[in-house]
């Protein structure tokens, strides 16, 4: 009796639990997707790629766990190329139209310049200037050259020029288009603090992963160079071009950098409608102070001065004059010499 009632109750409870678990599981992928949407909200291109992926995931019978895994795979480099790659891997595992799936995993066409060599891309194969197959590239940004054991990555190698295309309805569509981010090696300048430089590189790498084509502009400017610029329009001919005398800018201590966008030809670009806010968020995630939120916004500018404020640059001029840049960095606890 008790058992019967109890059994019946347990059965009801069991169904209820199952439904509850199902609902909970359903919410897992939705929750993960919402997390990504929140993180990427200031990057419309990345959100569009997420929209595309989440729509297409519904084409497949996936468990919640699988959907979450797909979203996590996408989050490593949330852009259109990755969306294609993630879906292509799913379609491959599923055995759906293997040629189309392969086409999603690897780019149909494009170009790659890496390690000083330029390659054409032909359905995932890298073809060198002599027409020889030299390696492979996938839409997840992974490059494998035949001459190397270790794979390279188009995002973390900031000197890479990459352009990935898919053919859609007979027309080429760009999936990813990135230019060298520090082609003049400004972040490796001896006058640039390498703790700071590492944070800027991480910022740019993440921006590249999100499909933002960015490049360094000004990084280091010596105090003497700053003084010369400050003199213009004051004691030297020409209009004024800066408000900061030597020592007042974090650039003078190798702790300031300006990062701008790239045009399709790789030229510097500073469009009002660029994803500046997202760039600032990524910079802040890497411990940098972004100039975009200042009273007079300075959107390309980031700086790093642990323990000190943005307006404190001038107090380090004496350190530099007495002990060089290392003395200033030491006072901030980011010296490079033991």
């Amino acid at each position: 009796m008790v058992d019967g009632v109890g059994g019946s109750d347990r059965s009801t409870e069991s169904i209820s639990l199952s439904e509850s678990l199902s609902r909970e599981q359903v919410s897992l992928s939705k929750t993960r997707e919402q997390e990504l949407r929140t993180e990427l909200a200031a990057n419309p291109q990345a959100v569009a790629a997420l929209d595309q992926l989440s729509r297409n995931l519904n084409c497949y019978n996936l468990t919640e766990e699988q959907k979450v895994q797909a979203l996590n795979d996408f989050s490593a480099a949330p852009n259109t190329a990755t969306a294609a790659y993630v879906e292509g891997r799913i379609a491959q595992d599923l055995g759906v139209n293997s040629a189309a799936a392969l086409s999603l995993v690897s780019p149909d066409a494009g170009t790659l310049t890496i390690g000083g060599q330029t390659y054409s891309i032909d359905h995932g194969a890298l073809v060198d200037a002599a027409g020889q197959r030299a390696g492979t590239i996938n839409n997840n940004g992974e490059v494998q050259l035949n001459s190397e054991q270790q794979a390279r990555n188009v995002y973390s190698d900031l000197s890479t020029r990459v352009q990935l295309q898919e053919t859609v309805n007979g027309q080429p569509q760009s999936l990813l288009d990135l230019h060298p981010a520090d082609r003049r090696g400004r972040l490796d300048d001896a006058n640039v603090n390498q703790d700071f430089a590492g944070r800027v590189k991480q910022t740019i790498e993440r921006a590249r992963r999100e499909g933002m084509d960015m490049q360094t502009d000004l990084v280091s400017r010596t105090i003497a160079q700053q003084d010369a610029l400050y003199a213009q329009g004051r004691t030297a001919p020409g209009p004024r071009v800066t408000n900061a005398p030597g020592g007042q800018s974090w650039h003078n201590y190798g702790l300031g950098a300006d990062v701008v966008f790239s045009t399709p030809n790789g030229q510097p670009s500073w469009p009002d409608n660029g994803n500046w806010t997202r760039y600032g968020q990524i910079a802040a995630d890497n411990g940098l102070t972004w100039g975009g939120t200042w009273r007079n916004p300075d959107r390309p500018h980031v700086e790093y001065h642990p323990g000190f404020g943005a307006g404190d640059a001038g107090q380090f001029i004496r350190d530099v004059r007495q002990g060089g840049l290392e003395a200033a960095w030491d006072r901030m606890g980011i010296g490079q010499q033991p």
Partner: protein
Amino acid sequence: MMRIDGFHRACRRGPALAALASVVLAFAAACTQVASGQSASTLASSSDPSSGLQNRRDLPGAGAVAFDPTGARLAWAAGEEVRVLELESGEQAVRAAGSWIDDLGFAPDGSLWVIGDKVQRWQGNALACGTQEMDADRLLAVDAQGAVVAGYVHSDGQGMLRHQVWLDSRCHPTAESTLPLPKGIADAEADPGAPLGRASLHSPRPRRDEASFPNLAGMPGAKPVAVSADGHWWVIDAGGRRSLWKAVGR
């Protein structure tokens, strides 16, 4: 990666979905199961009757491109290399610039200015001269006496500045100016530069009347990038990929 049990039935009707969302790459590829197997080299042997152009070759990695006004030659930047193509013979020469190339253009005498870490002038296959390292991004103008280059740099709280440098034919700087960029200029390519100061100085990329452009309606998204002085040769950009075309029947 993950194991997947089956393909959702609704997505097998993909073509209709793809028509509604043709720009959605994944729908086009997976849900509609199209767009695979087309060779990237297809373009290299194609022609487009409506444009009157015939494709001659792809320009792998092409950034800046320039036609030689004195002869049938095309130069393009491919990373750290300059590639120079003799248009009629197809013979190609490769020159190492030693750094990433941002811009290039021919002088009236056929020598080639190259903008990298240094500004270089090449005469034939020989390096005629080079500057010290300078932050130049663009080649603004050339003439027989030299060239004008510009670099763009941000100034704290001031916005972008243009640093313009005049070089003589031996690559020696003869003058320079640093000026705030006028408002509304959002990238280096949109900047006309400060007044050049010499009437003979002209852009290495002369503007052409759009009426002379080929009809590219048959190549959606394609646009002309450069044209030879005689109008016979065109560089066409399609989705960022550049290729050389020749006008048919001219």
